[in-house]
């Protein structure tokens, strides 16, 4: 369920929109005679990225956030659903895809494999523009100006190789590479997770600057709740391939309505050594998304679970104009004994 009704004047203000995205993978079965199992990586995911805003996506391993990013980037084919860029549905043909690529780009998690080790930094950045037909001279100038923009002196860095620069510098290069095609939307997939905290701070500052200067819209995917709170305007919480709660950062972080969001927020370590966490808010590990049981996928670990949770998938309930949750507890019509319409 989307935060806004369709057809309103605001709908065209959405830079990027996902409607009902779904993707499943077949998993090789253990034995020859067993049926192949399916992993429902992403199930009916819908959200909107408003122009000039940052949408955060949080969740733990197996929640499907990275798959969602790749579905948005069209790096993997969706099973169902629609992607809209600026109100227009994105088609599947090659020309539309190539045009889409110029508008939506992605920054990956920094790793030693995020840049081709055989290419210099400037060659890596120039690749995108050259593919789209720009002249070599133009692409070179663009690469140098982007390096300058992300805080790397071109005279020092443009001819270097990836292994000669540090993790934080590599990530700046990744950002420059993503910006080389002048996109309007940038998706960050755990882009700062592998960085030292002091470098992370620098890169986050840089991202803020770039967003303002270039009028970008961001989707920021991370498992780090603090980073998402700082950088996002709206946030989506995912669990086992579904969205369990979304809304403005202020609402979701301060008044979480879904038990999983509450547990997730309570799991953040306290930074005050005098008031330590005394009890774990949740037990067990995030389960595997193979062969999900019917009903709410969080029910096995939820302390508020009741009969209706194991039988029926919860519907989405709008709690306010900026807050939607998918839980029987928040739906007075659900039949849950503790259901109430205001968040707990």
């Amino acid at each position, binding site marked *: 369920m989307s935060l806004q009704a369709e057809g309103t004047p605001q709908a065209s203000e959405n830079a990027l929109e996902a409607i009902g995205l779904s993707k499943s993978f077949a998993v090789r079965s253990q034995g020859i005679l067993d049926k192949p199992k399916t992993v429902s990586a992403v199930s009916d995911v819908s959200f909107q990225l408003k122009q000039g805003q940052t949408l955060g996506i949080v969740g733990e391993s197996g929640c499907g956030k990275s798959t969602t990013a790749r579905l948005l*980037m069209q*790096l993997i084919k969706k099973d169902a659903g629609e992607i809209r860029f600026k109100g227009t549905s994105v088609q599947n043909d090659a020309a539309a*895809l*190539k045009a889409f*690529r*110029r508008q939506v*780009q*992605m920054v*990956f*998690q920094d*790793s030693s*494999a*995020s*840049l*081709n*080790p*055989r*290419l*210099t930094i400037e060659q*890596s950045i120039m*690749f*995108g523009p050259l*593919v*789209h037909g720009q002249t070599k001279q133009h692409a070179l100038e663009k690469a140098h100006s982007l390096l300058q*923009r992300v*805080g*790397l*002196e071109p005279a*020092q*860095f443009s*001819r*270097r*190789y990836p*292994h*000669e*620069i*540090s993790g934080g*510098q590599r990530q*700046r290069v*990744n950002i420059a*590479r993503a910006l080389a*095609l002048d996109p309007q939307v940038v998706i960050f997939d755990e882009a700062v997770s592998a960085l030292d905290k002091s470098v992370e701070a*620098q890169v986050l*500052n*840089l991202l803020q*600057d*770039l967003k303002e*200067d270039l009028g970008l819209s961001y989707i920021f995917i991370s498992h780090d709740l603090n980073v998402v709170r700082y950088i996002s305007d709206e946030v989506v919480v995912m669990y086992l391939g579904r969205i369990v709660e979304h809304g403005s950062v202020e609402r979701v972080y301060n008044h979480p309505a879904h038990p999983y969001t509450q547990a997730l927020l309570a799991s953040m370590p306290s930074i005050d050594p005098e008031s330590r966490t005394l009890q774990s808010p949740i037990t067990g590990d995030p389960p595997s998304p193979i062969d999900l049981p019917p009903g709410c996928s969080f029910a096995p670990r939820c302390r508020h679970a009741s009969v209706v949770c194991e039988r029926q998938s919860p519907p989405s309930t709008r709690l306010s104009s900026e807050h939607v949750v998918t839980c029987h507890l928040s739906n007075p019509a659900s039949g849950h004994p503790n259901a109430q319409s205001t968040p707990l």
Partner: protein
Amino acid sequence: MSTLVDNSPVTTNIPMPAHGYWHRVWRKLLKDKVAISCLSILVIMVLMVILAPILTPYDPSVGSVMTRLKPVGTEGHILGTDELGRDMATRLLYGGRLSLIMGFLPVALALLIGGALGTIAGFVGGKVNTLIMRCTDVVFAFPSILLAVAIAGALGAGLANALLALTIVLIPPLVRVTESATTQVRQLEYVEAARASGANSLTIIRVHILGNILGPVLVYATSLLSVSIIIGAGLSFIGLGAKPPSAEWGLMLNTLRSAIYSQPLIAALPGVCIFAVSLSFNLLSDGLRSAMEVD
């Protein structure tokens, strides 16, 4: 506007422009004494066989019955003469041409064909991969020497047929190595980023895949050179490769068999050459592999 400029002391000390990968591999290889000696031996050998007409006044196919099987060190014939009176040194030099061609050419052709097939199989995946790899497995199932003999035998004796047989035998292992390397590289993040930039498959293969698989494939191909020379000499030995009176090391080993009791040293000379070359290729291949562990 961000004024964040990275002015850490780290970067100012590395000289610019930085060196590319192959440059660094070369520098590391230069420090490996064994590898460089082998490389020098091979280079010298190649030069010598190319310059054979300048280095020796004799004709490799002309011999005199009077000068049969003269021992090593005879005046006018440094390495002696063979059973038909031809100068051994000359025969070895001219023979080296054919033997080295039997080493290089099949490997080069198999690298082109097998490399292309392996890259396609690795990059495309799915059914295409299964098709190519299973066909490769079928050919690979035959022991290479027997397969070479069978093909050369079916096609008939002669250098060209031997080269064809060798090429066919060498394609499957190169397909395998290339496919494996491509599959590994294809999953890396920078390839994903290239796809996200809108590049088509051919561009991605050209820019991102080839450069990164060349290392392990080259190492493997270098080790195949010695295999190719040995099998090629073997084919000539049993009469399926070079035909007399041409000089070729394997063929020479056959024709000098009868001299093994009277002039064992001379009978062994072609074998020594084969051994030296194939050992050099093997050691060079090892050295190349260690040199490639640069970053």
